[in-house]
């Protein structure tokens, strides 16, 4: 039965895992995602899931187990964070290259050095060219909803591409929230039966998987691998709509908050978008025409859709919880700015890096951003295209 439950982000993911009951779950514990792995282990110990739980000696092996298991022909998931995702890095490309529909919950955490266990997006942003679909969550409810949808997207026959669902370390993973947990059977029905495609376990169909390509085939194979992610936008959209029809919470590529008559816009992903909404409400009550655009899907990046939503703004601030050393700006900013390039009339745009290593971002910080946007809109000039929020210098 559908019910309201008080869960933190990790428990919300675990609850979805219990309901979906994947065939193989392979994961290595790492803060702040450990509780997901522990909860799965307990589910298994208590007979609440029937899948095989494998607890390997490293994240590299966890992803290797996932790759072997998915190739064998069944539904597979993992969970990790930060250094763990980095250790998987080599295997992320292979999972995508072999077109395996693995689903991963990534509890976003900063990258060492210095070592820090708190939330930022450096881990998944570092993996943005690995071929995985990336979906980000604002809160526990979205983490739960996104994780359920991820299987439908990954396993769709036109897509067959791994999907990761991000949720912010500690800020979401360890914060309690009342969320709507849907009925077990309804979730199972929504996710559906797994459809194996070229399973190794069908030994009557002898196969060579993962052969070596030289210069004569590699390029064509890499090109054909892209078809999965290229085919994914209508699937992501349809699954988000169907989820809405079934459970009442519809999802698209991004969320627009008070954007109807907005002239200034703040773009921010994940948990900070919640705080930003409060700031927008305050600014609106002061008569300021500020709105929020919260990207949900980062890969495939919805360039056109976001550009259409932003093109008439006077000024836009893109906030990244990640830096991109030596680049023109942080990842979200460069994607959005590039998407706006083809428009003759386009907004002034500025990039702020915030919240690295879990540094707090508050309503007042968003209000400062809004006042800077007002100034940019007024003068038509961006003095500093790239700067930091809440940083001691």
């Amino acid at each position, binding site marked *: 039965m559908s019910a309201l439950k008080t869960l933190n982000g990790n428990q919300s993911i675990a609850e979805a895992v219990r309901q979906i009951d994947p*065939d*193989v779950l*392979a994961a290595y514990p790492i803060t702040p995602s450990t509780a997901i792995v522990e909860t799965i282990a307990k589910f298994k110990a208590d007979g609440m899931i*029937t*899948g*095989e739980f*494998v*607890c*390997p*000696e*490293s994240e*590299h*092996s*966890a992803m*290797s*187990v*996932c*790759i*072997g*298991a*998915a*190739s*064998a*022909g*069944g539904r*597979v998931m993992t969970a990790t964070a930060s250094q763990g995702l980095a250790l998987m890095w*080599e*295997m992320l490309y*292979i999972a995508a290259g*072999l077109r395996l529909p693995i689903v991963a919950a990534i509890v976003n955490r900063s990258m060492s050095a210095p070592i820090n266990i708190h939330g930022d997006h450096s881990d998944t942003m570092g993996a943005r060219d690995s071929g995985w679909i990336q979906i980000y969550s604002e809160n526990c409810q979205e983490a739960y909803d996104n994780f359920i949808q991820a299987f439908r997207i990954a396993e769709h026959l036109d897509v067959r591409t791994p999907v990761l669902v991000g949720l912010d370390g500690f800020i979401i993973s360890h914060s309690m929230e009342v969320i709507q947990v849907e009925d077990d059977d309804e979730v199972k029905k929504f996710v559906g039966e797994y459809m194996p495609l070229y399973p*190794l*376990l069908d*030994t009557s*169909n*002898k*196969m*060579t*998987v*993962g*052969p*070596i*390509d*030289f210069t004569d*085939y590699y390029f064509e*194979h890499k090109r054909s691998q892209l078809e999965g992610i290229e085919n994914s936008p209508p699937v992501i959209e349809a699954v988000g709509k169907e989820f809405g029809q079934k459970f009442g919470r519809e999802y698209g590529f991004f969320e627009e908050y008070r954007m109807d008559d907005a002239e200034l816009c703040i773009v921010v992903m994940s948990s900070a978008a919640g705080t930003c909404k409060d700031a927008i409400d305050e600014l609106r009550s002061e008569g300021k025409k500020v709105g929020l655009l919260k990207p949900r899907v980062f890969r495939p990046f919805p360039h056109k859709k976001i550009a259409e939503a932003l093109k008439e703004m006077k000024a836009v601030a893109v906030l990244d919880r990640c830096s991109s050393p030596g680049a023109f700006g942080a990842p979200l900013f460069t994607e959005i700015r590039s998407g706006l390039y083809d428009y003759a009339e386009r907004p002034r745009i500025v990039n702020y890096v915030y919240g690295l290593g879990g540094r707090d971002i508050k309503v007042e910080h968003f209000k400062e951003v809004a006042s800077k946007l007002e100034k940019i809109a007024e003068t038509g000039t961006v003095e500093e295209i790239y700067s930091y929020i809440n940083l001691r210098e």
Partner: protein
Amino acid sequence: MAKLKDLASMEDRLVPGHGMCLGCGIPLIFKIILRATEDPIIIANATGCLEVCTTIFPRTSWNMTWMHSAFENAASTIAGVEAMYKALKMKGRIPQDKKIKFLGVGGDGATYDIGLQALSGTVERGHDIVYICYDNNAYANTGGQRSSATPLGASASTSPAGTQSPGKLQRRKDLTKILVAHNIPYVAQASPGRWKDLYNKAKKAFEIEGPAFLNVLCVCPTEWKYDESQGVRLLQTALDTCVWPLYEVENGKYKINYKPKEKKPVLEWLKPQGRFRHLFKEENTWVLEKFQKQVDEDWEELNKLALY
């Protein structure tokens, strides 16, 4: 024990047309091992000679189900395949009576070095798999760099002999012993030069429930630099000098499978191989002595272990 005639009449699972070197020990090893069960086998093959030489797209030499994902993870990849087999059997999505053998395969680079952690984890977790290391003492696929299986004094491209160096300064890692320390049901050292012994060990490894590990000596004319027509003789010399003892450890119990009537000096093993040529210069005599001493000590220790 199957007769050679019966084995020869079995369908090949590794078929001709691959690109392995003339005189390479790898096909010899796998033609024997892949006949040691009649059940279907799924292989996860680490990056290396066997993988590269058999699967240059669009061709394959595998008349069976085979997969490659990366260099250091053949063990964890096959563990994943086995886990899915168990899951789907339990969920009733594959028939209860469907038997499959799961085989992880890698060279010494993939097994002794970069993949040791994944192998250790996989056998510790007790997956019902067999792992075969074909040990040709070097990173042969990439031109003969040293591995931790490269013997003392061998000249390898990253431990070359030179005016100031007698080749590799360190002794080999004893990987078989490391696997024994995992207390898994079956660990063995074998050689394709003794095909019956290798066949029996592979058969036992496939039949035993739980993880089994075979370390198989593999001649490599390209990197060892010997007359490639003499590979099987050289393999016999490895046994007669006790450089590569044949033994097995079944549920903790050691058994030596071959004892030379008269133990030969290691010189007979070293001399035909170009990788040891420099050891016969006067200034490197100490390496020869050290090599002999280590082989003697290891053989003595193994004989003691086999008493219990």
